[in-house]
């Protein structure tokens, strides 16, 4: 048996990969931050940035080369994330597509769908919007009511209903989501995973302003909207399985790698130094937050280590499954913790705004999206610890959600 020793060293290839992306970012990251991606100008600026990344083959490093990627390993993808966020590069306007939708396309899409959908998604030409939640279906996703009726004459489906909290819905182009195609089936049966063109007849988008003021998500009203058969992902009626296949396996890993939190933790330490040295306006009692700064930094580091542990497990052929719920709770609370600590360090200046306040407001959403942390803790308790489900009738069957902004 080959003795596999613990080895916390990046290989020569991985180090070379790190240097290459670091150099590229140093030369190309805009010197000034782009406007918010949830403004008309900012949305376009972010799309141009995605195009720039795509042209240099950095947009989707882990995808196969034929769809615009580099076939990078999981470790290389983590390295990419570390360098990307450390460099201060713009947020990813295409993230709902490339991290949440693309895995389902890879797993269930036809060859034609992959070729048609993936490259424009990676290039930022088509920005994908989520179509999971509905007014009466939040955490309880399987309660969704938006329905699709068969149109045999035209070869497709006609959609009627309403989606909400659809991230990027205000300016995005196409929506992926679940629809009820069998009116007699209940809960997670009889659902179909569909792709919807938001420019189609019968679609109305109503932007929703978020806590920070910009319309980062939207309501999407569907009134007899036609979707051709070519835009069904997987088999009709199998939508729940298609959707769940991509939320379980790599939920935390794909949506939120450790890189962004490491970068924020390093900035937090830097902020502490500067405030303590009187080089930046902030609290007059920085010492009171010493432990909080150290804790936030340590938690970011531990998320990184946990991720390397997970990557090792995957490399050993193990599956991750419900452990992704541990990930999700951890990174969302870590992000909140990092930004809340920074806000406290800024003291009376915190309310005057800036990147830390923006980040704080964004982090407040973390425990809510991608499946609320309450739902995740239920999943952890039931699937990892083996505690009994609540009796039926008290809240029925739960479906875990994979949703991000």
């Amino acid at each position: 048996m080959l003795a596999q020793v613990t080895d916390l060293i990046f290989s020569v290839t991985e180090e070379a990969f790190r240097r290459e992306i670091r150099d590229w970012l140093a030369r190309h990251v805009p010197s000034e931050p782009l406007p918010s991606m949830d403004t008309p100008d900012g949305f376009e600026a972010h799309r141009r940035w995605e195009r720039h990344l795509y042209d240099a083959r950095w947009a989707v490093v882990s995808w196969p080369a034929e769809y615009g990627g580099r076939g990078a390993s999981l470790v290389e993808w983590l390295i990419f994330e570390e360098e990307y966020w450390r460099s201060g590069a713009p947020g990813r306007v295409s993230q709902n597509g490339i991290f949440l939708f693309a895995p389902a396309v890879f797993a269930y899409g036809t060859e034609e769908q992959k070729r048609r959908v993936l490259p424009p998604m990676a290039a930022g030409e088509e920005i994908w919007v989520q179509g999971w939640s509905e007014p009466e279906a939040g955490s309880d996703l399987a309660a969704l009511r938006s329905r699709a009726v068969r149109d045999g004459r035209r070869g497709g489906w006609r959609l009627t209903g309403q989606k909400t909290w659809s991230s990027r819905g205000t300016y995005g182009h196409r929506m992926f989501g679940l629809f009820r195609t069998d009116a007699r089936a209940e809960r997670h049966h009889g659902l179909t995973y569909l792709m919807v063109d938001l420019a189609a007849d019968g679609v109305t988008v109503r932007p929703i302003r978020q806590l920070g003021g910009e319309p980062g998500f939207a309501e999407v009203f569907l009134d007899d909207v036609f979707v051709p058969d070519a835009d069904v992902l997987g088999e009709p009626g199998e939508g729940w399985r298609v959707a769940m296949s991509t939320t379980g396996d790599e939920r935390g890993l794909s949506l939120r790698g450790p890189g962004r939190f490491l970068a924020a933790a390093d900035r937090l330490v830097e902020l502490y130094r500067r405030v303590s040295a009187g080089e930046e306006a902030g609290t007059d009692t920085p010492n009171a937050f010493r432990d909080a700064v150290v804790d936030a930094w340590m938690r970011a580091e531990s998320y990184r280590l946990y991720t390397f542990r997970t990557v090792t497990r995957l490399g050993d052929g193990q599956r991750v499954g419900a452990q992704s719920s541990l990930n999700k709770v951890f990174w969302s609370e870590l992000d909140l913790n990092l930004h809340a600590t920074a806000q406290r360090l800024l003291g009376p200046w915190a309310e005057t705004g800036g990147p830390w306040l923006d980040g704080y407001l964004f982090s407040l959403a973390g425990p809510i999206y991608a499946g609320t942390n309450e739902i995740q803790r239920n999943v952890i308790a039931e699937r990892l610890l083996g505690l009994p489900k609540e009796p039926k009738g008290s809240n029925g069957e739960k479906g875990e959600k994979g949703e991000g902004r």
Partner: protein
Amino acid sequence: MRLAPTADEELFARTVRAVLERRCAPREVRAGFARGRWAELAEIGVTGLLVPEEHGGLGLGAGALVAVAEEAGRACAPEPVVEAAVAATLLARVDADGRAREWLRALAVGAAVPAVRLAGPGTAPVAHAAHANFVLVADGDTLYGRSAAEAYIHPAPGVDPGRGLAYVDMSMSPDGLLAVRQEQAVTRAARLGAIGAAADLLGAARAMLDLTVRHARQRHQFGRPIGSYQAVKHQLADVLSAVEFAHPVVLRAAYSHEHGRPSAGRDAAMAKVFASDAADLAARSCLQVHGAIGYTQECDLVLWLRRVWALSAAWGDAAHHRAAIAADLLGPAPAPPCP
């Protein structure tokens, strides 16, 4: 890049677990330290885990200690498993007219039962000194070692009777002197102790969690298992999260220690912070979920509660190690991270 216990470590841990499942049931834990169990642990190599091979030990490192200490914590074994490893690393560095060599050989065969104090107030009691036959003490950078018969040892009260706390007066006389100017060795040994204690705490936390999940599945109130209530589920989910996220931190600390990484001190401190915090949370939540039965001596949970209350503060408590991390991280030249 590979962050996981090795196959050898996992195999070794399974062997230790098998011995402890047979020899360290809660009834036996209540009886405290047992020479017979120490001898059996010696047979499979636990007492000589870090004793160099030329002195009859296995010559392994921090990774192996993590695997073994986790099992000791899981079984709540009262024996000084971590202390044996710490004593071995120190003794392997000194000669002292062959005395160190004798103790190393005695450790490997289970004849020596060690107690160790490397830091803290000299007046504080020493864990395991009540059942040890050999005491190792660092006073600053000077190492003293004596057989228990030559030292004045007086049992001290302790929250965990299994730890065998005792006051030790070595009367720092020259005949107990082992070595001088051992600052680096003492620092490294204290790190190893913190890493071992961290692994032990995680094992204890897992044991408490298992016990509590079993209870929450069996105990019914209002016609359903209490474990089906979210108020219970969420507490235990948080315990699992704390343990799962602490584990790679402990594995990394063992690696940094073995490979002499610049961040080794900070990494060991972080391991103890995460493990102490996780075990404290586990103790608190598992007691709460057990309810009144958990607040009794008859429930086995008490064995691990006591262990955690004591061990969480031993080898430097979370606050001590946080301060050390802060000094490095917020100081002029933080150590580069590993990896």
